[in-house]
Structures are given as structure tokens and as C-alpha cells.
């Protein structure tokens, strides 16, 4: 019979029936249901298995603190492990599976662990599985790992999208229960900028679970009216389905809004969830309270729940876990559950109250001064064993047992900045401490104000106090004084569950104490108490109470572990947002990108830039063929390469030269206008940071280039020197990297090609525009451009720059005009080959550990002036005899391979770290020399040219004989660049 445990009333839409399946069986539910409420309505109590002993489990709670009823929700690539059935909104076609059981939930082979529980006590694994040594990885651990874990991932990419956003407000209210709603009303009516966030899909908090009246009408009427008024206010933003996961520094809160989790799939273009970073001036925490359990033997069977949870299921969802219910309580709240159930015609077997002075009821039996000492029922509760005040035993038949041990304020967010809660003796509970996150106030049950009227007024007053306005009037309603007496566990209990998911029992806490793990952190780590997916919300207090008893201290003396974000487990996907796949990082495209794509270029990533790596043409079967061709064509005629990606920094001001003298280790003061110079930058610690060129366009104007990878770092460094070290220098900086499309035109015919483009007014002959010249010119009939005669390839070469929007047109023009010279576009690979052939250092050489001396530029560090890094570069350790020096490397046998990353060893003798002589930084096949070449650093390299050594790369299984040579493989005299 379907929905046999469905009661009357409730906030569900009975006009619509939703079909869903759990472990393959189909059930009915209604809009407004959660998976748990619908299953209970269908008389399903068994929903999961515990972690260690695989004990049968049903829901303990009706909220996000649920430790037991966790399932695999949805299927395929949307499978969602460890999902709390108590918060999963029901939708038509919902599919859920129980987890951590085999072969079935009702019969779980691993439940055998429960039989051996005596051997599997806290920390048993630290004491065994050690012999023989090899067996841990091979035998024991695989078994443990297989058994471990709860739900499983689909192993497929998450198909849903996640967004991240930013919201700002004056007051963030966390929790839309009585306190939160009144606070929002107070602030909203005053026109203040408010965000009200609640993790539930229905606002109202505990009001949704109660039957008493507000202003003599059902609580739901007041909640509905209040929410309606709030949503009509433009200055109030209501955020249901939004969990505030963390309180971070200076009023920044993380909040996750579930946009589509209540649907089968997210609508087109919409995310599954959004991570909001909420920036608020003030925060009011109205997170309510969580009922706590009592530890007694076998208190973990399906059907044994928190009393308030049973009340919530009955009142909000019109569902009961069973038709015959017993309540076990140490306070008045348990009686409220009994009364509500009775009103809904659920049979109350008994209310077992630990207090001799418990209140009387005419509707059902109240057994005073009694305790539940044990329970029965394999897959669900069948009997509760009582110990009566007079010591006699009694058995009560029931399908559900509601346990009420009092309430704990939800102080979690108050602790996210390491604040500690304080102990309130009257409530026998921890309440928010003094050291709250700055800007945070707490109201309602979260602050220990448990009566409904108390919560309503405390919310209104708190908002009024924070914003210095007048509180709104709270509706009239129950205002019962709360009597909460400490009663944590039943005398003599042993297998009494504290952490139901991790199977931590009173016995484990006792063993932990016995073995000296007595600090709360040791207790937690040794027993795993509170480390389950409920983050200890339902388990910590019981454990603390028992440890306190054992060490003979009070609970506050024992202390608490720290509550850390997130408040509830949070999908990793939403924390990643849109930054995944190809959108992980933005791309930077050069002005010739679209043209290069047409040409079929292969692109490579450099500092977010996509650069053409080589340009394959028809008939080329491998990349080497393309690269060799590009190099030869450039060296023999002319090639063009997009070098826009090099950082460009505009340096202006009357002190510009003085400034460059400070940041470059070599001198720039005397550089003539119209000239360019190579510059080497050191870090203050004397290590090379970056290199590039600076062209002087005017007395007070330089254009500095940096390497592609270091552009940002160098700019930051230059701003530091400018603002912090030379505050009075007249120098202004701005990056112009992307403003100019810049092309290297290299090769013997480069001048001829450019002369066809550069306007005749400008003489770029060798005399008119010699090596290292630079200047402003115009091209193609008047377009402003810049020309630099610099060369990375070692050929006669220029770099020409035009405004980026014309870069596409210019490259096409260069190709067209260059046809007569077979102009060839070349990519970063050919560029790399040519610079290695010339022995120019690049990223692999400027690796953050090399000095000017290592790079063979020791003499560049000017002693005539002070520059960043010059002083510390003089330290002995950086100037020892035999220091690493850059050298060239070529194979003795021309056919042999050279690999970057290989180490250099003497030609004979042992091969080990002690005999390491240096390493290879860059390697390439040189089409010009027709064999591989490399650059590297070798101890005392300068004086070892001609020496034969071994290049060893054990990790790539390579050993070759190499000769140490000059790093300048091609045109060592540098005649070509001056041609």
C-alpha cells in the first residue's frame, strides 16, 4: 500500500503526485516532499548503512545535519554520492540508490563487521597490519580501502555548469526562521539593503515544523504573509535554497545557491548552483538550533530519530516513520512532539521522561524518571527496553522512537574565525562566545533563545540594534520557558552510538581515554568522532560529555573542537565555477592569430598566449620538417614571426634613463636617442630575473621589452622600484603590450622586403638605420609604426610594430610583398632553434637560479653605478671558482640525440650526483649544422671548450658523448646582424 504513513495536513501539494525510485522500487510523493519524507510516508525507514559496521540506518534528523540517510542521488554522469535524503527535494522521476552496501541494503555482506566490532575498536588499525611489512600495501590496505568510503563517483565529467557571483549588502541575515524573518522585516521596512539567506527551499525555519499559532492563526499564515511582504521590498533580497557556507575575513561570506538541484536537469544555459561571495557590513546569524540525542544501547536502529525530526515530518510533510511511536526525552520539548503526533492520530506508545517531575498528559502515558536502556529490531526498530524509576524493566513495542536530549544552538559560523563558543549552564549547551567574527551578531535559538516569541523578538531587536532603527512588533505566540537539564547517556551503556555514520560508540570514547587520547582533538582524531559528513553536528556533544565524565572535568573544561567551513559539505564544482575545460584560463590571441589559423598553424600556450608553433605545409609529415624549413628559409632569405607577445612597457619622464639605470644591471644613461640596447635585469638577490631591450625614442621616452612569460612580473617590479625606491623620480610607466602588433622580419632579404612597405621618407639602409637603431616611422602610405633593428635569430633582422587592429592586414601585406623572396612565416619552434644556434639565453636559461656570471654576462653588471641586485650578486657563494657557465653542447657522433634536462658527467668515471658537472637547459636540431645542439651550464664551463663529456639522462634512458663548444653555433662574429 503506497504512502501508508502519510498523515493529514502538511505543506505538500497533494493534487500533484510525483513518481520516484529508491533502489529500483518506485514510490509516490508530492511537491514539497524531500526524498526522506516521501520514503517515510511510504513506510520506508531503512535508507542507508553505517561506515564501519554497516549497521542498518534510517534518518536521524529532518535537515542538513543528517548523518545516516545519505544516498547516491541521480544516475549516469550526474550521480551524486552522499546526498542527504533529508534535504533532497523530490521531483518527478527522481532516482536514488542506497550506498555502502553489498549486495543489497537489506542484506549487506559487510555487516559481518558488526559481529567483529570487538576487534574493530577505535584505532585498532594502528596496532596491527604491520607484519610482514610488505603486506600492508599488497594485502591489508587494499581490503581496507575497498571497504572504506561511502558513495561513489560516476568517474565521468560533471555535465552541469556552475556560476560564481558577487553580492553586496548592508545586512546579511543567515537563516529565515522566526528570528531571521523578524530581523528582515525590521530592516526591510526601514529601507535598508538586506539579504536574507536560508538553506531550506521553504522559508520559516522551525515555524514550518510547529502547530502552535502566531497571532491566533496558523504559523504558516504568518510566514507566508511575511515572506510576501519581504519579496515586495526592492531593498530586500530573499535567497532561499542558499546555504551560507563560511564566514571569511572582513565581512565576506561564501554562500551556495542551489538553482537547479530540485529539477531533473538544469534549464539550458542555467547553472546547477551559484557560489555567491556576499560582501556585507553587518551579519545577523539566525541559524537556529539542532536537537541532540541521548546515548543508550543500540540507539541507532532505523526508526530511532530525534523527537523534533519526527515532529517536523508529521507537521510539515504529513509523514510518520511508524504508526506507533515512543518518545524518550529529558525536557519538555519531547512532549510537544508527542502531543503533535497524537493530534495527527499517531499512536503514542509512551513518553519516557528521565525527570521525576515530568509533565502529565491525559492523551498518552508518561513514564517519569525512566530511561530507554536498549532496543530491538534488525532492519528497523521493533521494541524499546525501558528501565523504570523503581529499577524494574519494561518492554514497549514501537516502530519509531523519538529522542530529545535538549537543543544545541547552531554556533558554527561564529567559530569560523577561530572564535570559541562559551558554555551556558542553564541551557547545558554551548552558545556563541565573545570573539565572534567582526560585524556578526547572533539572535534567536542560535543565541540560546529557544522560545518562539523569544526568537521573534530577539531577531527584531538585534536588527534594530545593528542598524539603529525601531524593531517591528513580533506576533503573539508561545513563550514557554525552556527547562533543559543535562542528560547525555544512560548509565552503563557501551555500544551506544555517538557518531552514527562513523560508528563511534561510548565504548570507543572510553578506550580513547584509557589509551591517553584525552584532549578533544586527540579524541576526535583517534576515534573519528565528529569527522563524518555531518561534521559532528549530531555527535560532538555526546562525546564531549562522556570524555568530561571520564576525566572528571566539566564539559567546558574539556573544550570543543573547532568548527571549520564549509557549514555543510559543498560541491567542489561550484567552488570551481566556470573556470574549467578550455575556460580554465583566458586565452590571449596575437593580431595575426586569425591569419595563422587560416594557414593551418599549430599553436602553443605561453603565458596564456596562443602562439604559432610552426606552420605546416602540404607534404610535411612531421613537425621537424616544418621547423627545419622555416629556419632554412629565414636564414637563406626572409622569415616573419609574430613577436607581439613580448611584454612592452612605455617608460617616459625626465628621469626615465636614471630609472632604467636602476632596474637594469647594465647602463642606459648614455644610450643615444634612436638606439636600442640589450638589458639584463637582476632580482635584488643578485639572480637574473629577465632580459629584453630598451629603445630610446626620445630623451625622455623609452620602449622596454620583456620576455613573454615575465611581462607581468617585470612590470610589478618596475612599479615597486618607481613608487617605493625612487618616489621622487620623474618617470611614468604603462604597459602597451597589446596595443601594438609586432613582427620580426629576419633574414638576408628582410631589408628588401621592408623597403617595399616602409614609406620612402624613411631610410632603412644599413647606414640610415644601422644595427640596434629604432624609431617612429610610417608604413603602407602613412600608418604610424615603430621599427627596431634588433635580432634574436642572428640574421639581419627588424621588428616592426603597428597598432594591433592593423596587425592582420600587415602580416597579409608582408606575405604578399614577400612572395618574390619566398617569405616564410615561422613559429616559436624555429625561433627557438635559431636563438639556440646563436646562444641567446631564454626562459630555460633564465630559470631563477642563474646569475649574470653563469650566463656569461658577468661583465655586464656595471660597477660604475648602483642597480637592483648588483650588491648581493657579489656574495662569495655566487662567485666561486668553477661556477656554472653557459656553454654550447654538440654530440661527438653527429647522429646522436641531445636532451634538455640531461646532466653532464666527465667522459669516464662514475655517474652519480657527486660527479655531476652541470646540465643541459635547451636542445634542438640545427638545420644549419645538420645535427643536434644544446645549451647548458657547466662547472667552470668557460675554460672547458673542446672537452669531451657524457650527457646522461637516466630518466629518458640516454647516454651520449658530447663536446663542449662555444654557445655561438652560427655566425659567432655576428656579421650577419650588421649586414
Amino acid at each position, binding site marked *: 500500500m503506497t504512502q501508508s504513513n502519510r498523515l493529514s495536513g502538511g505543506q505538500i501539494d497533494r493534487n500533484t503526485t510525483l513518481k520516484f525510485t529508491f533502489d529500483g522500487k518506485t514510490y509516490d510523493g508530492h511537491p514539497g516532499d524531500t526524498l526522506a519524507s516521501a520514503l517515510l510516508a511510504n513506510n520506508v525507514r531503512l535508507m542507508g548503512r553505517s561506515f564501519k559496521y554497516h549497521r542498518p540506518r534510517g534518518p536521524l534528523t529532518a535537515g542538513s545535519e543528517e548523518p545516516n540517510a545519505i544516498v547516491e542521488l541521480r544516475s549516469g554522469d550526474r550521480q551524486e554520492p552522499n546526498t542527504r535524503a533529508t534535504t533532497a527535494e523530490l521531483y518527478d522521476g527522481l532516482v536514488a540508490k542506497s550506498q555502502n552496501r553489498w549486495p543489497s541494503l537489506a542484506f549487506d555482506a559487510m555487516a559481518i563487521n558488526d559481529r567483529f566490532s570487538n576487534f574493530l575498536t577505535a584505532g585498532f588499525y594502528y596496532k596491527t597490519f604491520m607484519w610482514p611489512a610488505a603486506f600492508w600495501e599488497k594485502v591489508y590496505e587494499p581490503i581496507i580501502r575497498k571497504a572504506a568510503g561511502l558513495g561513489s563517483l560516476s568517474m565521468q565529467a560533471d555535465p552541469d555548469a556552475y556560476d560564481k557571483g558577487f553580492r553586496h549588502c548592508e545586512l546579511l541575515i543567515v537563516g529565515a526562521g522566526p528570528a531571521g524573518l523578524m530581523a528582515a522585516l525590521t530592516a526591510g521596512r526601514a529601507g535598508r539593503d538586506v539579504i536574507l539567506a536560508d538553506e531550506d527551499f521553504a522559508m520559516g525555519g522551525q515555524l514550518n515544523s510547529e502547530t502552535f499559532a502566531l497571532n491566533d492563526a496558523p504559523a504558516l499564515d504568518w510566514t507566508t504573509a511575511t515572506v510576501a511582504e519581504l519579496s515586495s521590498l526592492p531593498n530586500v533580497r530573499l535567497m532561499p535554497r542558499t546555504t551560507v557556507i563560511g564566514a571569511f575575513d572582513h565581512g*565576506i561570506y561564501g554562500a551556495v545557491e542551489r538553482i537547479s538541484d530540485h529539477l531533473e536537469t538544469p534549464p539550458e544555459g542555467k547553472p546547477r548552483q551559484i557560489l555567491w561571495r556576499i560582501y556585507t557590513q553587518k551579519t545577523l546569524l539566525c541559524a537556529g538550533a539542532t536537537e541532540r540525542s541521548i546515548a543508550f544501547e543500540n540507539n541507532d536502529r532505523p526508526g530511532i530519530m530525534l523527537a523534533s525530526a519526527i515532529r517536523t515530518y508529521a507537521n510539515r510533510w504529513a509523514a510518520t516513520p511508524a504508526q506507533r511511536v515512543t518518545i524518550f526525552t529529558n525536557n519538555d520539548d519531547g512532549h510537544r512532539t508527542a502531543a503533535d503526533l497524537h493530534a495527527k492520530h499517531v499512536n503514542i506508545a509512551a513518553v519516557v521522561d528521565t525527570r521525576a517531575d515530568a509533565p502529565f498528559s491525559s492523551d498518552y502515558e508518561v513514564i517519569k524518571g525512566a530511561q530507554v536502556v536498549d532496543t530491538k529490531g534488525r532492519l528497523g526498530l521493533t521494541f524499546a527496553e525501558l528501565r523504570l524509576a523503581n529499577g524494574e524493566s519494561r518492554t514497549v513495542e514501537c516502530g519509531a522512537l523519538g529522542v530529545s536530549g535538549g537543543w544545541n544552538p547552531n554556533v558554527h559560523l561564529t567559530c569560523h574565525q577561530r572564535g570559541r563558543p562559551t558554555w551556558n549552564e542553564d541551557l547545558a549547551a554551548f552558545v556563541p562566545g565573545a570573539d565572534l567574527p567582526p560585524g556578526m551578531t547572533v539572535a534567536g535559538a542560535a543565541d540560546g533563545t529557544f522560545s518562539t516569541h523569544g526568537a521573534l523578538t530577539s531577531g527584531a531587536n538585534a536588527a534594530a540594534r545593528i542598524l539603529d532603527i525601531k524593531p517591528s512588533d513580533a506576533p503573539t505566540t508561545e513563550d514557554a520557558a525552556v527547562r533543559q537539564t543535562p542528560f547525555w547517556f544512560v548509565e552503563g551503556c557501551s555500544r551506544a552510538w555517538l557518531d552514527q555514520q562513523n560508528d563511534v560508540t561510548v565504548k570507543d570514547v572510553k578506550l580513547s581515554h584509557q589509551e591517553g587520547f584525552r584532549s578533544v582533538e586527540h579524541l576526535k582524531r583517534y576515534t573519528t568522532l565528529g569527522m563524518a559528513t555531518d561534521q559532528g553536528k549530531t555527535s560532538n556533544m555526546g562525546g564531549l560529555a562522556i570524555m568530561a565524565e571520564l576525566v572528571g572535568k566539566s564539559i567546558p573544561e574539556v573544550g570543543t573542537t573547532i568548527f571549520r567551513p564549509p557549514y555543510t559539505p559543498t560541491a567542489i564544482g561550484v567552488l570551481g565555477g566556470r573556470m574549467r575545460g578550455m575556460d580554465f584560463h583566458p586565452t590571449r590571441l596575437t593580431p595575426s592569430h586569425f591569419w595563422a589559423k587560416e594557414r593551418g598553424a599549430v599553436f602553443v600556450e605561453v603565458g596564456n598566449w596562443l602562439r604559432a608553433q610552426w606552420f605546416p605545409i602540404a607534404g610535411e609529415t612531421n613537425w621537424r620538417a616544418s621547423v627545419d624549413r622555416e629556419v632554412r628559409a629565414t636564414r637563406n632569405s626572409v622569415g616573419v614571426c609574430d613577436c607581439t607577445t613580448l611584454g612592452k612597457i612605455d617608460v617616459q619622464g625626465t628621469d626615465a634613463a636614471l630609472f632604467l639605470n636602476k632596474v637594469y644591471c647594465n647602463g642606459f644613461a648614455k644610450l643615444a636617442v634612436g638606439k636600442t640596447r640589450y638589458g639584463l635585469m637582476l632580482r635584488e638577490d643578485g639572480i637574473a630575473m629577465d632580459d629584453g631591450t630598451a629603445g630610446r625614442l626620445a630623451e625622455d621616452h623609452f620602449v622596454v621589452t620583456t620576455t613573454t612569460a615575465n611581462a607581468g612580473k617585470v612590470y610589478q617590479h618596475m612599479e*615597486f622600484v618607481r613608487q*617605493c*625606491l625612487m618616489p*621622487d623620480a620623474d618617470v611614468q610607466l604603462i604597459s602597451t603590450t597589446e596595443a601594438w602588433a609586432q613582427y620580426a622580419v629576419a633574414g638576408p632579404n628582410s631589408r628588401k622586403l621592408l623597403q617595399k612597405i616602409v614609406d620612402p621618407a624613411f631610410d632603412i639602409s644599413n647606414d640610415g638605420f644601422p644595427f640596434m637603431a629604432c624609431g617612429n616611422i610610417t608604413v603602407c602610405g602613412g600608418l604610424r609604426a615603430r621599427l627596431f633593428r634588433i635580432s634574436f635569430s642572428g640574421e639581419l633582422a627588424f621588428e616592426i610594430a603597428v597598432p594591433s587592429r592593423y596587425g592582420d592586414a600587415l602580416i597579409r601585406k608582408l606575405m604578399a610583398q614577400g612572395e618574390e623572396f619566398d617569405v616564410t612565416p615561422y613559429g616559436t619552434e624555429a625561433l627557438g632553434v635559431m636563438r639556440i644556434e646563436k646562444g641567446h639565453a631564454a626562459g630555460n636559461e633564465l630559470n631563477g637560479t642563474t646569475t649574470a656570471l653563469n650566463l656569461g654576462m658577468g661583465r655586464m653588471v656595471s660597477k660604475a653605478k648602483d642597480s637592483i641586485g648588483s*650588491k648581493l650578486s657579489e656574495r662569495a657563494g655566487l662567485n666561486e671558482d668553477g661556477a656554472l657557465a653557459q656553454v654550447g653542447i654538440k654530440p661527438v657522433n653527429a647522429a646522436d640525440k641531445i636532451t634538455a634536462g640531461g646532466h653532464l658527467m666527465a667522459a669516464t668515471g662514475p655517474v652519480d650526483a657527486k660527479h655531476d658537472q652541470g646540465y643541459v637547459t635547451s636542445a634542438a636540431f640545427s638545420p644549419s649544422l645538420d645535427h643536434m645542439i644544446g645549451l647548458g651550464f657547466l662547472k667552470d664551463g668557460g675554460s672547458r671548450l673542446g672537452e669531451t663529456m657524457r650527457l646522461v639522462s637516466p630518466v629518458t634512458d640516454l647516454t651520449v658523448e658530447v663536446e663542449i663548444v662555444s654557445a655561438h653555433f652560427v655566425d659567432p662574429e655576428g656579421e650577419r646582424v650588421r649586414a
Partner: protein
Amino acid sequence: MIINHPLLGPRDSAEFIYMGDAGLINRPDPETASGEEWYAYAYLRDNPAGEHRELWWHEGGDRSWLVVTRNTVTHEISKVEIARDVARAQGRSK
């Protein structure tokens, strides 16, 4: 964290790049400083558990270097200054 920029008001620290102890402004005098002073400048830190004056660069903002006084235990920020002004006040010029 929120850094209250002297010119722009409260800005998220994610817009900034952190460098470290504001003592880095006090670069030793190249004419007179000893090797020991250079070593101390570049490498030794007070690293206090408490108030710390430190350099942040507003990379995602106005490109100002700021000197932020922040408590390293509570993260509370008690003072924010423009580093250029601090440098001048400490006698740096060109």
C-alpha cells in the same frame, strides 16, 4: 580580506599582489651599506605574530603600492597608506 584603499575605499584583497614586509622600502644606501646590512635587508624578517606592516600592489586596481598594517593573528587591518608617501616620509627620493 578587504583592504581600505586610501584613494578607492574598500577593495577585495584578491585584487592585490602581496610582497611582504614593508621594510623592503628601506633599501640600504649603496654608497655606505655593509654586506651585513644588505643581507639583513634581503633576508631577515621580524615575522611578528601581531601587527605587521606589509606591501601590497593593487594590480587589479590603480597600480599603487600600499603599506598595509595588518594583524597576522586576527587579520584585522588597522592602517593603509600609499607606499610612495611612506617612502618619501622615510627620506627616499631618487
